[in-house]
């Protein structure tokens, strides 16, 4: 990598994960989806940083923590532009964009108050599509919600 700002930010981390290019408005939702609110590891969150194509962006750096594809792909619901960097021994060993899973379970609340999923102790389930924008359709009541408007459980 070149000596740009991103590289410097990444370089501070010995082992862990850096999630970059998160839309500023989605940053704290992403923290919640990744379950980092109660982590004991070194966690750095930056938001409203200048970004060419996003305007402003957020970034999450978490030490000694690695995610399965399944986990970090969930943030594609609210941050389809996010890029995940896996850092080992100060090196970026893997860099990939999140990709939206076809089915999102247990992380988004259905916007329909008359949906069974809001009235029964059960996991929510949505079918996701991303053309042109991320849209979720409730598996139960069929209501749709835009990914950027999704309420995270």
């Amino acid at each position, binding site marked *: 990598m070149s000596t740009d700002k991103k590289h410097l930010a990444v370089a501070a981390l010995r082992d862990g994960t850096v999630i970059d290019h998160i839309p500023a408005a989605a940053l704290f939702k992403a923290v919640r989806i990744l379950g980092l609110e109660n982590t004991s590891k070194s966690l750095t969150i930056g938001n409203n940083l200048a970004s060419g194509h996003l305007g402003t962006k957020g970034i999450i750096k978490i030490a000694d923590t690695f995610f399965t594809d399944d986990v970090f792909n969930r943030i594609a619901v609210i941050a389809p532009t996010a890029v995940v960097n896996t850092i080992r021994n100060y090196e970026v060993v893997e860099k990939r964009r999140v990709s939206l899973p076809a089915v999102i379970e247990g992380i988004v609340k259905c916007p329909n108050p*008359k*949906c*069974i*999923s809001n009235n*029964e102790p*059960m996991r929510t389930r949505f079918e996701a599509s991303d053309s042109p924008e991320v849209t979720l359709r409730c*598996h*139960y009541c069929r*209501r749709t919600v835009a990914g950027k408007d999704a309420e995270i459980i």
Partner: protein
Amino acid sequence: MNSRSFVSIEDIGRPQIEALLDRAAFFEAHPDSRLLEGKLVATLFFEPSTRTRLSFETAVNRLGGRIIGFSDAATSSTSKGETLKDTIKMVANYADLIVMRHHLEGAARYATEVTDIPVVNAGDGANQHPSQTLLDLYSIRKTQGRLDNLTVAMVGDLKYGRTVHSLVQALRFYNPRFIFISSPELRMPEQYLQLCRDNGIEYEERSDFGADAINASDILYMTRVQRERFTDAMEYERVKNLYTLRNDMLAESKPTLRVLHPLPRINEIALDVDDNPKAYYFEQARNGVYARQAIITSALNIELPHDEH
């Protein structure tokens, strides 16, 4: 999880629709086939609906099956706070099939995920009511001799009327032409217009209930315009009479036109239409029993006896 359940018309394609309609035709010809002898059907009406419950229970009784259940959640353990999951799992120990109606959307889908016995959705809030759709299709096929290439006018509340939404979904396989007639505030929702466009289906939207639309139609599907859908009471008073069918409006319509309505009606079909041979809504309700016999026996994987005729 089970696959023989019938939760939504969206789940089935043209071959399954036609297999169910053929089955319904068999039951019209053989109304008292004892195909459910020894079977127990649970009718769980978490939300009361006398009309739908009687139709399902008639279907089961005519097939020689037996029924357990409740007609109102107030008399069931749900009123003591039991979850839907627990109620379904309990009943599944006793019954071979569950027919359920619930005020919450998606309740029937969820029920199929917590039991192995088939679940038939008898209405889940504003979402789906697939046995109604099947009886509508049966009525259309029976009166027109086909489902293909028909002009179907839908009148009244196209925004909240789940029966018209499901009928649009089901007819997408049959190259229909739709005329959507409603006040601007009760228009057909965009997702169903999009469904028409995606399937190359011709449609027009209009707010006047004129003779030219009636005369062009093979099916006139009337729906209830409910007062509670309007924020403005004056607007309701203005609109409710604009979408009322009177007998003189049928004067120049096609001889084969039939008027359908899911019932109960309020004032959207004048009483003088009832004696017109084009009025089909009471027979339509009777077809509901055949459609439900078809759905139940199909869900239980019961083969029909060979027709001797």
